[in-house]
């Protein structure tokens, strides 16, 4: 197999290609005819990871959908799509929320931060990312970006949490590998309480 053709690159390629754009616009042109007048403008400017992005968003579209399929930010995972697992966790104005259970139109005046926006401009990882690597926190890794975002939200408001506070703060993120204690070790390390 071509080592350069990873699943992620393939998905991003499809998103970037005109084929996907054409098919979505067809879907909207067919389905959008019954919408009542006075509804929201579809063309939005949303602030994602410090950049203002122009994007065409249907009224009922979730933030997770916009991030993954319109903006190519596939670091935000969709696990249950029901607000019951936490893998889609992102920050909106520094508050951690489920991107699958938020309409993109609800955050148009907020600053959205996803896992892609954490590292510094020079590529240095965020302290939580570095600590999670150091502590081998992820096992399969699917829930990791959500765990990272919840940990970042916690440390923004509480830079030196107790282990119990960290447990509470990360309690909205499921990990099917059961690596919870490893994530908590990571939070402790990121907050400088473990060396």
């Amino acid at each position: 197999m071509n080592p350069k053709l990873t699943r992620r690159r393939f998905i991003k390629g499809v998103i970037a290609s005109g084929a996907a754009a054409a098919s979505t616009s067809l879907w909207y042109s067919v389905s959008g005819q019954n919408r009542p007048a006075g509804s929201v403008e579809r063309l939005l400017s949303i602030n994602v990871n410090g950049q203002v992005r122009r994007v065409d968003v249907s009224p009922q579209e979730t933030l997770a959908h916009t991030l993954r399929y319109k903006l190519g930010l596939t670091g935000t995972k969709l696990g249950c799509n029901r607000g019951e697992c936490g893998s889609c966790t992102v920050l909106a104005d520094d508050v951690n929320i489920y991107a699958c259970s938020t309409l993109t139109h609800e955050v148009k005046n907020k600053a959205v931060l996803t896992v892609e926006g954490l590292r510094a401009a020079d590529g240095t990882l965020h302290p939580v990312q570095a600590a999670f690597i150091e502590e081998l926190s992820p096992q399969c890794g699917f829930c990791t970006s959500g765990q990272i975002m919840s940990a970042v939200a916690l440390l923004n408001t509480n830079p030196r949490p107790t282990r119990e506070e960290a447990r509470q703060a990360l309690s909205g993120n499921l990990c099917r590998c059961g690596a919870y204690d490893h994530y908590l070790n990571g939070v402790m390390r990121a907050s400088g309480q473990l060396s």
Partner: protein
Amino acid sequence: MSSHDVMPDMGLYQPVTVEDAAGIARQFSTRGWLVGGGQDTYGWLKDRAKRPEVLIDLKGIESMRGIRETADGIEIGALVTLTELTTNSLITGRYSLLAEAAGRVASPQIRNVGTIAGNVAQDVRCWYYRRGLNCYRAGGNLCYADTPEGMNREHALFNASRCVAVTASDTGPALVALEAQMVIHNGSSERVVSAENFFVGPNIDITHTTVLRPGEILTAVRIPAKWANAEFYFEKVADRNVWDFALVSISAAMRVNNGVIEESRLVAGAVEATPRRLDRIEQAIRGKARNQQTADEVAALAIQGARPLNFNHFKMPLLENLVNRAVRGHA
């Protein structure tokens, strides 16, 4: 029935005044759907179990935000999130019962967006109903939960009438205990309903859980000073500590003088379609010492009149034990 990745095509309105929102709600009536935090909404829509034509997003209405002191107590805007209830000093200081109840709702991320209005106005969690089956509550003429094979472990002990679903709200019982008043706006006028009368059971209206009607918006919750800094007890029992809805919860507010209970309000959650006020307990403990002996004497009153279903008998000792703990004042 399958769940879908995307919600069906809908209109979305984002009004910034209560009057505009109520006007839009009135215009679309049952075809419109009010959204606050949306945490009870999007599941219905993804499942196609409810099919509104337009969503009316209330979060842009500034007048429905914030917690204010009033001449008699406090007023909580309908859009105040559950997280704000757990961190606001007015709530944690004077009405810690409400802060504790709000802190046990769902998960941190859901509390960050879920509102107090949404928590009290949310629909019941009976899975047959939420699956979109045409049961009594959905306007049909049978109940799938109250059958010999029906999975009704989470369902009602009291006052079931055709529908056996229970209230899912954790803050509802706390607000009833605190004698809160619900402020409802219809665009031109305002009416105020006590928390106790805000919730309605299936014997009165089987397709609604509250007195809210199309075109009406719950704009604020007022809590009188009467129960400020009282002695409170809250406990919620659920299968999981996070996300899960209560199997039984207890909210209690008491005025105790020299160890004697002068006045109290005890309200149980998740045992009937509305928060259940335990007035027999309140009467029985008035003037009694707040201790284990009193608790043991009265706790059994809590389950008088219970009519358990096939799989929820366990809720009776659970309710009795929670009442016992609330009366004696510790777990």
